[in-house]
């Protein structure tokens, strides 16, 4: 199946992942969260060599194994079997988070429940409803050199997830650097949230209309096909 065909079949999750992959540079150490972030790995061009970090103690995870060739002990942090790249290493959970806290992750790619125009992230608790726990998200959001948030622009009830102030308990303050949704690409800067790109077929007006946060514009807003 060629690239064109992939795009034909592409849903919004895949498009977000494809756009996110463009942010990845050769040589990066990256942690991928569960959900849309996991899909990013499929869109990284072969010439960009990256090491994926899994918080359960692997540096250098590779693609999923062929069916029947799984080692049930060799899984990513989401619990799914993985393979290894050359140069991979195993270590305990304390070292996995030493790498994070020491600031050695070039990028972490996370899903969220809410993200604010200041870069505040909420993704671990909906009081009284869902309380999955923070897992490693606090460390990842607080300590990675670059935090990329991938999310649908709206929640199931049609409300903006990109907002002025988070209403849910925070995972980390001022953590997000770039937000990629099914409608737009937005950059968190010191003076506010900037709209950089809109996802085809949405217009700038569509995105501004769907966003509770204040969106600033500085220069051209391009369209991502």
């Amino acid at each position, binding site marked *: 199946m060629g690239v064109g065909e992939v795009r034909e079949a592409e849903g919004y999750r895949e498009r977000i992942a494809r756009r996110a992959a463009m942010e990845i540079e050769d040589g990066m150490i990256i942690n991928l969260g569960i959900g849309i972030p996991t899909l990013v790995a499929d869109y990284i061009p072969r010439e960009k060599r990256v090491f994926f970090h899994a918080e359960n103690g692997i540096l250098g995870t590779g693609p999923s194994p062929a069916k029947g060739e799984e080692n049930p002990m060799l899984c990513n942090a989401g619990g*799914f079997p993985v393979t290894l790249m050359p140069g991979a290493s195993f270590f305990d959970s304390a070292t996995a*988070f030493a790498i994070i*806290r020491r600031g050695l992750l070039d990028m972490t790619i996370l899903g969220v429940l809410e993200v604010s125009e200041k870069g505040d992230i909420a993704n671990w608790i909906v009081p009284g409803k869902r309380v*999955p726990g923070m897992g490693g998200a*606090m460390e990842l959001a*607080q300590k990675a050199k670059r935090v990329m948030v991938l999310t649908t622009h709206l929640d199931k009830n049609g409300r903006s997830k990109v907002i002025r102030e988070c209403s849910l*308990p925070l995972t980390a303050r001022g953590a997000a650097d770039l937000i990629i949704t099914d409608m737009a690409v937005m950059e968190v800067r010191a003076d506010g949230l900037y709209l950089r790109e809109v996802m085809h077929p949405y217009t700038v007006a569509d995105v501004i209309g769907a966003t509770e946060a204040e969106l600033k514009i500085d220069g051209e807003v391009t369209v991502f096909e």
Partner: protein
Amino acid sequence: MAHTGDRFDKVVSLEHALSYFHSGMTLMVGGFGGVGNPPTLIEGILEKGIREITLISNDTAFPHIGVGRLVTERRVKKVIASHIGSNPNAGAQMTAGELEVEFCPQGILAERVRAGGVGLGGILSDIGIGTIAEKGKTKVTVGDKEYLLETPLTAEVAIVHAKKADRFGNLVYDTSARNFNPLVAMAGDITIVEADEIVQIGDLHPEEIVTPGVFVDMIVQSKGVNWRWAWEK
């Protein structure tokens, strides 16, 4: 450390190992999403009817996998974990007020277990500063920066899953089943290892040993994983 007889042969029967478990105990378990949870010891806990457990574990795994089974069968009264999302029974029991849950950021949980295991009085961290994870924690200022005081964790019994153990208790792990296991192995007042393979002293290379046997009190032979993984169809 419990004196279980011969320091140079710590292999015991499952029954003997289980004699150190009791209802109301604190139990620490190595593993992450079920991977690295010791299946035979967990089965033994269920069969022996141990209840009212205070569980320290990265997560509550899945409903029918690993340590998740203890939650599903309502053997746990409190859990200290970073994540319970993959086991809906944990969330439901928590919401119903039947299970007390103390959340801890995952890397801090790892360091708290390690701190207990290596005999420190606590650690200082800035993880969770400015969030509700601060709640109830002492703040300590070092230089001009504020940190949260995180307390060490130990347990009456710690159980781990190793790939190989020699009879002294030197351990190696299986790929990513290492995760919390080497930390948990240090943090038990009694540490019991379930090993897939038990070898003679001298069979492990000194450089490959991850956990020195001095941390281990007892070793039981694993009967292998007795659940289907979530990814298996």
